[in-house]
């Protein structure tokens, strides 16, 4: 058994909505798979099925060799979960929450206490350890919840949008923690809206939409898959955007993406340097004042956009929170 997670044709329906539509994948032991997809793609549903919180309507899945339906109890001993919304007890302190989780993993009173202390330190919560969670900030709650997933040092971890709502420092700290865990042999299934996070942490990225996997590979493989290079161009005035867009459209190998706020246009092209030269020539003739122009490899954002037709979320969590 070299796969820590296997899913075969998972189906989950909510009335008319098909949340999972025959999803299949495997996650080799000791690796990180990131699930990427727009809102409602089925990421949380996947996590809930694999952590035994939801029974699939069809298909089969195993985690750490245990069937999600038939062997739920033993499966739960082998996993740690931090769901999309923090599942902590508001009336208990951070320390009490973690200690309770340890006891429910049957670690015993002493180890549960020690483990709680360790994790609070690791997540920079020592000062707040003995205050009820009720008075914690959103990011602090999130950290207690994440610590909860690590209490039993489980071989397989599920983190559903783990860094949503964390400040950049806490996010970087969590990335370090995750990297350490994975280096020590843990397997991780992670969902995220941040391309940067997937790029940084994941061995493999799977893009899901409408409950189906639409692409899978390493970040580089996915970038190659959408192919070509990008021309990225910034004009000086909003009035020039349309002219520039039309000029670029003549070389486009895909959709032309315009961001009016930043006066920026991006387009995928096949022959990068030659296209760029011609575009600049055209724009010079049309009198468009180009402020910045360049050629770049596709980013994960481009991959995501091309595959799902959705703009990826910004990399700034605050900005994203505000738009929710």
């Amino acid at each position, binding site marked *: 058994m070299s796969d820590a997670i296997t899913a075969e044709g998972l189906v989950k329906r909510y009335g008319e909505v098909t949340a999972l539509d025959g999803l299949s994948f495997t996650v080799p032991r000791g690796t990180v798979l990131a699930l990427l997809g727009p809102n409602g793609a089925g990421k949380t549903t996947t996590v809930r099925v694999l*952590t*035994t*919180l*939801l*029974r699939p309507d069809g298909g089969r899945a195993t985690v750490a060799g245990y069937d999600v339906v038939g062997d739920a*109890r*033993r499966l*739960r*001993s082998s*996993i740690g*979960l931090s*769901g999309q*919304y*923090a*599942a*902590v*007890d*508001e*009336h*208990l302190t951070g320390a*009490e929450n973690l200690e*309770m*989780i340890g*006891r*429910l*993993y*049957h670690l015993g009173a002493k180890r549960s206490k020690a483990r709680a202390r360790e994790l609070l330190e690791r997540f920079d919560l020592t000062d707040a350890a003995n205050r*009820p969670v009720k008075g914690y900030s959103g990011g602090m709650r999130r950290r207690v919840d994440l610590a*909860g997933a690590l209490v039993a040092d489980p071989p397989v971890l599920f983190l559903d949008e783990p860094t949503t709502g964390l400040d950049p420092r806490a996010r970087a700290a969590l990335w370090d923690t995750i990297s350490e865990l994975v280096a020590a042999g843990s397997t991780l299934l992670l969902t995220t809206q941040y391309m940067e996070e997937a790029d940084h942490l994941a061995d493999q990225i799977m893009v899901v939409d409408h409950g189906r996997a639409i692409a899978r590979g390493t970040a580089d493989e996915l970038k190659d898959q959408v192919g070509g290079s990008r021309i990225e161009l910034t004009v000086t005035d909003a009035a020039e955007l349309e002219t520039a867009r039309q000029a670029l459209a003549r070389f486009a190998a895909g959709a032309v993406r315009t961001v009016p706020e930043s006066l920026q246009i991006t387009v995928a092209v096949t022959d990068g340097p030659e296209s760029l030269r011609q575009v600049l020539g055209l724009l010079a003739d049309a009198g468009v004042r180009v402020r910045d122009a360049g050629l770049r490899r596709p980013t994960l954002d481009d991959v995501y956009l091309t595959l799902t037709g959705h703009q990826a979320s910004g990399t700034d969590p605050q900005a994203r929170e505000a738009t929710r």
Partner: protein
Amino acid sequence: MNALTMPIADGWTIARRNTRKIRRSPDLLGSAIMFPIVFVLMFAYVFGSVIDVPGMSYREFLLPGIFVQAVLVSAQVTGYTLTLDLQKGIFDRFRSLPMAPSGVLIGQTVSDLLMNLASLVVMAVMGLIVGWRVHTAPHEAVLGFGLLLLFAYAFSWFTATVALALRTPESFNNIATTLSFPLMFVSNAFLDSSDLPAPLRVVAEWNPVSTITQAARELFGNTSAAMKTADAWPLQHAVPASLLWIAVILVVFIPLATRLYKKAVSA
């Protein structure tokens, strides 16, 4: 850990969590302590001044009824807290852990039993202050409190079942209030049920609240020979009938609550 010890150990862990919560929630604690004080005073002095029972003081007659009422009200905490927890994500956490699923309900009912015990102690002290006395041997009085606590525990499973079926604190509160008023007042808890008109009297005589109240009166010696005794079987054999009621409630509602819990948390 095996199939028998795990629910107990996990239930204990959850019960500890709940008692901590109760200690930190002034509203819950307040109602557990304040409620008995207010009720003993109100019934003893307000109702006590207009209601007469033959052959004994109304306060002595009243207190066992008040005990039963307190237990009914406190047991509703079980259902109410479950609906609150259902609205948060904490059950997801529990279900992703290798704990015994029954541990959640066992823990909840056990912690509420502890709260009920505290509330009964306050109540008994208040009773002694206003003139209630135990007239039986100490072991019978202990049996009386034991019976009340057993009933409290069983009734917690009932409120848990109602809560898990309704799922929101608002609807639970509505139903709980609507159900507990007739249950309390169409009974012999506050007055002599043989004074009631025929249809109400029959309901009152077969009401489990009357059975438990009668049993408590007998075990504390708060009865009088001058009072008419009802012919209804449960009042003639109040102690065994109470035990029977408790057993029936437990047998019906433990599996029902457990099933509803599984359903409620996986939705």
